[in-house]
Each structure stands twice: as structure tokens, then as C-alpha cells.
């Protein structure tokens, strides 16, 4: 079994195109194998006659296993030997082993492979066996030393038992990284990464709808402070949550925890990361005051003067990613919050007007609500989002 690609450890025989006695040319495709990436052909190493094919259809073999033998002239064989690829196998010298410790369910499969060779650094084990997600104490200790998390290991294809990541895999991976350009992550980048990773341990889901932004844009003209659509959304979310505060409750163990105040975070892009300062009692803060508060917080965030206290304690967050020109997204709630409201960019669309019986122009935006599905269901999230949309379409009340 040749090396079929960098991260390929084994392949399954899907077709054998020759039989013993067939004359073959050099580099002739004689066996088709399937990996998790593609079907590929195994070619003859040199010209000669097929002596026997030991590989079985539908069986999976690790890289370096013997699949069969080609009878070749000494000259051809000598030429091939010089070109032999590195993962040399000594499989033909290994007698089949009677492994008494293998459980009966596994026995057949393991026995089928036993004669075919041990791959370097590990034994051939079917990928379906336990262990693929197992991290040994040794690998765990090395990860702790390097401050790595399981998410960092996602890029490594394990070569150990049951495809688990071995210490060798980890060291090889780290070695490869060193040949690329590497710099320390900033504290804020590391902080965002940590928060997102922790948040992603939860079952997150998103609902979305379109919202007519024209009322907001008109209302905005009538206000001196010219609040942005993101702040209208913040205000609308705060009022909607004040009406049904259980929507933002958190589940901790078997307990439902609900905050005493409606504190809403607003996502602010800072250099190399995101900060989420919190507006306290947002439902009691007028839109005009929100503008002032928001501007102060943005200034502080840009200067990186937002203290941890100012980012703590929110029950939901608003992300106005529409300012980047994108129409929709599925933002991830902060790890200590259940909800995140995302507002996309507004765009003029033709909208059917039932009374006029014609299409009329309308500024429409997509609004999405991501939620922790442990705490709230699709229906609850949809009702909250619908209420936010209603409020946004009657902005004079905000």
C-alpha cells in the first residue's frame, strides 16, 4: 500500500484488476483503493508477472502493507529496490499471530490484517474502534505544557490506535508549524478564541427573519442624536426582554438562572478582536442616552480601555455586522449568555404592496437570533425575534 497522501493512514481495496499470471508493465494501475478523500490506483513497482495478490476486496490496509507480489527479472527488481519509498515493510517476515487477548467481535477483522504488516509507530486498528477522540494523559500533559486545547488538535490526523492523536503526531504537527510564519497571538485574540471555544461547547442554533428598516431610517432623521440601526435593535431587544425576561435565562446544571436586570452587550470591533461592553438596564435607557453611552464605550474599546467589569454580566448581545456590508450571519452567543441578536446590512428590495397592487421599494435587512438550545427552543427564540421586529417597525416607541 503506497503512501497516498500526507494525512492518509490506510485505504480500502475497491477493485483488483489483475489476476495471478498476468503480465504487467511498470506503473500499471492494478488495484483501486479508496481513502477518506478519493479513489486512487495502486501501480506496479516494476515490469513483470503477477505472482499473487494477497489483498482482499473491501478490506482496509494501513500504508506499507503488502498487497501482492510481482515476479520480476533481477534487473527490474534491482531497479525497483533503488526507488523503494521510505515506509518499507517487513511484513512478509511476520508470522500471523494468534492473539488471544482480542475480543471475539474484533477478532476476525484484526486477524485479517495481522499478516499484512504493522505500520510504523502503531498497530493496525480499524478506525471504527474506540479511542479516536481519546487523549491520553501523556498527550494531555504535553498540551497543558504548550497551552493547547482539544480544538488546536483538530488539524491533526491521528495515527495511533483507533486514529487517536499520539504524542508523535502532536510533535510532528508542532514541528511543521515551526516552518511557517509564527507569532504570538495578542491577548484580545486569545481572549476571543477562549470565549468562542467555550461557547461552542453548547448546542447553539439560529433563527432569522427579514425586517423592514424604513421606519427606523425615517425615525432616525427625526432624532438629533442620529442613532444607528444597531442601537435601535439594542433598544428593541432590551424592551422585548423586559416583556419576557425568561427568554434570556441561562441553564446551569438543572437550574434556570435569570438576571435581575436587563443588561445588553454591544459587539465592538477592536484591533485584532471583538469587545462586548455592556449597557446596564438597557430597557430603562432612552435611545438618546443609549447613543451617548454607546459612543463612550466605543471610544474606550478602540483605546482598549474597556475593563473586564464593563464586559461582564450581560444577558444578551447585539452584533451589528451589517456595518461590514454583509446581509446575514449566525453569530455565536457569548459563553455566559444565551442570546445573540445579529443585524445584517439593509438593502432596497421590491416589496409587494397588497393595497396598491404593485411592488414598492423597501429597505430590508436580515435579523438573526442565535441561542443556546438548552435554555430556549426555536419557538421561544422566534417569538422574541418577532417582537424585536415589531418594535423596530414602530420605532417611535423606542
Amino acid at each position, binding site marked *: 500500500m503506497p503512501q497516498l497522501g500526507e494525512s492518509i493512514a490506510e485505504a480500502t481495496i475497491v477493485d483488483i484488476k489483475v489476476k495471478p499470471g498476468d503480465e504487467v508493465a511498470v506503473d500499471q494501475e492494478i488495484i483501486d483503493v479508496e481513502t477518506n478523500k478519493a479513489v486512487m490506483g495502486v501501480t506496479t513497482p516494476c515490469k513483470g508477472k503477477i505472482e499473487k495478490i494477497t489483498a482482499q476486496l473491501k478490506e482496509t490496509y494501513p500504508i506499507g502493507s503488502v498487497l501482492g507480489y510481482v515476479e520480476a527479472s533481477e534487473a527490474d527488481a534491482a531497479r525497483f529496490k533503488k526507488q523503494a519509498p521510505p515506509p518499507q515493510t*517487513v511484513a512478509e*517476515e*511476520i508470522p500471523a*499471530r494468534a*492473539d*488471544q*487477548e*482480542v475480543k471475539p467481535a474484533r477478532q476476525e477483522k484484526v486477524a485479517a490484517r495481522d499478516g499484512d504488516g*504493522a505500520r*510504523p509507530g*502503531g*498497530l493496525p*486498528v480499524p478506525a471504527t474502534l474506540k*479511542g479516536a477522540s481519546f487523549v*491520553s*494523559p*501523556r*498527550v*494531555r*500533559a504535553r498540551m497543558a505544557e504548550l497551552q493547547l486545547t482539544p480544538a488546536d488538535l483538530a488539524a491533526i490526523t491521528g495515527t*495511533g*490506535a483507533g486514529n487517536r492523536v*499520539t*504524542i508523535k503526531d502532536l510533535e510532528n504537527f508542532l514541528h511543521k508549524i515551526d516552518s511557517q510564519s509564527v507569532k504570538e497571538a495578542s491577548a484580545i485574540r486569545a481572549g476571543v478564541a477562549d470565549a468562542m471555544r467555550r461557547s461552542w461547547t453548547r448546542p447553539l442554533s439560529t433563527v432569522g427573519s427579514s425586517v423592514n428598516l424604513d421606519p427606523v431610517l425615517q425615525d432616525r432623521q427625526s432624532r438629533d442624536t442620529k442613532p444607528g440601526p444597531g442601537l435601535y435593535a439594542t433598544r428593541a431587544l432590551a424592551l422585548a426582554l423586559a416583556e419576557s425576561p425568561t427568554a434570556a435565562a441561562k441553564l446551569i446544571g438543572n437550574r434556570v438562572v435569570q438576571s435581575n436586570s436587563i443588561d445588553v452587550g454591544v459587539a465592538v470591533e477592536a484591533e485584532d478582536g471583538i469587545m462586548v461592553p455592556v449597557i446596564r438596564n438597557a430597557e430603562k435607557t432612552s435611545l438618546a442616552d443609549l447613543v451617548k453611552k454607546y459612543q463612550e464605550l466605543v471610544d474606550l474599546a478602540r483605546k482598549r480601555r474597556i475593563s473586564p467589569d464593563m464586559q461582564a454580566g450581560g444577558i444578551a448581545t447585539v452584533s451589528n455586522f451589517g456595518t461590514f456590508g454583509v446581509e446575514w450571519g449566525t453569530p455565536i452567543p457569548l459563553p455566559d449568555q444565551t442570546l445573540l441578536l445579529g443585524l445584517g446590512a439593509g438593502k432596497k428590495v421590491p416589496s409587494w404592496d397588497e393595497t396598491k397592487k404593485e411592488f414598492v421599494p423597501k429597505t430590508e435587512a436580515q435579523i438573526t437570533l442565535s441561542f443556546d438550545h438548552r435554555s430556549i427552543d426555536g419557538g421561544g427564540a422566534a417569538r422574541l425575534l418577532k417582537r424585536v421586529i415589531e418594535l423596530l417597525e414602530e420605532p417611535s416607541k423606542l
Partner: protein
Amino acid sequence: MSITYLEAIREAQARLLRDDERVFIYGQDVGGTFGGAFKATKGLAKEFPNRVLNTPISEDAIVGTAIGAAIKGMRPIVEMQFADFSSTALNQILNHAGTHYWRTNIPVPITIRLPSGGTKGSGPFHSQSMESIYAHYPGLIVMTPATVEDAYTMLIDAVAIDDPVVYCEHKYLYYHLKADKLPDKGLPTGRARIAREGRDLTIVTYSAMVQESLAVAGELARENLEIEVVDLRTVKPLDTDTVLASVARTGRLLCVGESFPWGGATAEVIARVTSEGFHLLDAAPVRINAKDTPIPYHPNLWSAHRPGAKMIAAKARALLKE
């Protein structure tokens, strides 16, 4: 020249008797022309008159007498006919020899030779391995030599040590194991030995099981599996550093001992590695011991009761797949 494990023990005693007039040998039928049940003292009574002494059949009295002689400055070597019989002398060994220095500041430099371990057809009273019992108690050093060379130098070290030493010699190795010549000096007492280097799995073992484990390591090498074999040499003191260093190299630990499975030397090794070196492990450590029943007479039952190369190989392969 070829010398067996048993001959090495006799040579060591001859050298001790020759070099140090405080040394004498004390045991059942060790003197006269008989030379002990296994002939470990054959010829010594003639060469060293009045220093190779027969005793009554009372292990308790033998050890008690030897302790008294040691307190008075002698260096007695006590031979038990079988390790199993030393249980009759437990009170003298554990409560007197083991505690004397700590109570009085007067050392008790006795060496108790225990012909240990199983041989075919020997049954429950002539096959036991007692090292774990003695290692459990403070004040004793417990030696378990696995090679001809160690059998020789460790017995010489045992007599030189001021603490009481329980020297467990394995009967299975008496005639099987041979060496070309005897060294003058071995590793220091309490230092384990890397009997074979490897990178995939550490087998920690001692006494006859070292030989079984080395056979397994040779067998698995043909499958590209590199087994490191650590020979503890003394189960007490236990060389935790060497064991941890080996596990750091391999990430996998298999402990093999011939004694009964409840507690004991193998359990102690695993306890130390898991508490001090948990971060070194790629898989849960595995332990192989005899079965938890009295040792059977019938050769087939005995073979199944005692850990052997076949079982060690199977467990090693399974552990490498973990």
C-alpha cells in the same frame, strides 16, 4: 567457563566466607556432606569447618539465633529450604530483625536466602514468591536477582549491608540460567537495570519474570515493536526514578510479577507511576501476576497459574493497541 545461577550463589557464599570471618551459614542440612536441599552450599562445610552449620527444623529459632549473632557482630547467612517455610519465621524477621535498629540503634546485618518461585509439580508449599510480604514491612531490604551476575554480586552486597536483607533467589533459574563469568561488582543496591531498551512499551519486572519478559521482547521485535524491559533487581528499595524515566520514553507500562495478584510489588510500581507520572501515560497501566489461588501441583494447571511469555506477549500486544 560456564556458571549457573545456583553456582553463582555458592561462589558468592564461598567468597564471603573466605573474605570475612564474621560470615557463617546457618540452615537446615546446609552443612556436612549434604550441602543444602538445592546444593547451594555444597562443599562449603568442608572448606570452611564450623562455619556452615546445620540447624533444627525450626525457622523461627534459626532466624532468632542469627539475629542474636548479628547483634553481637557476626554476618550470618540464613538459608530457608523453601521461601514458603519462612512464614514460620515471620515474627523473628518482621518484628525483631526489621525493627531492631530503629528501637536500639544496633543494626542486625543478617541475610536470609529464600529459594523462591514456582517449578513444575512443586505445588502450594514449595513454589511461593514472598517478596511482596517482606517488602511491605519497614526495616528490610528485599532483593530479587534475575541474572547469574546479579545473583552473585547482590548476595555479596546483601551480606555487606547493615540492614537485614531478604534475598529471593529463583529456583526456576537455578539450572536454566548460565553466564560465562562472574563480575566483581554489580549495580548499586536499589538501582534498577534496563535489561533491554525499547521505545513502545515498558515492562517492569523482576526475578524469573525478567527472563520471560526478555523472551517476549525478542518475539515482538520481529513485529517492529520495541519493548523496554526494566529489571527492578531489588523490589525494596524500589527504583522509581528508573521506572518513571522508562515510562517517559514509552508511555506504556506493563508490570509482571510471579507472586499472587492482591497488592504486592507490581501494584506498588503502578501506584507510583500513576501518582507521580500520570502525565507520562498513553494508556492505563496493566499488571500481570499469578492467579489468586494456591499454586497447583499439576504441570498444566501450574502453567496456567503462573504468568509466562505467552500471557505477557498477549497483554503487551493488547496494551500496544490501547
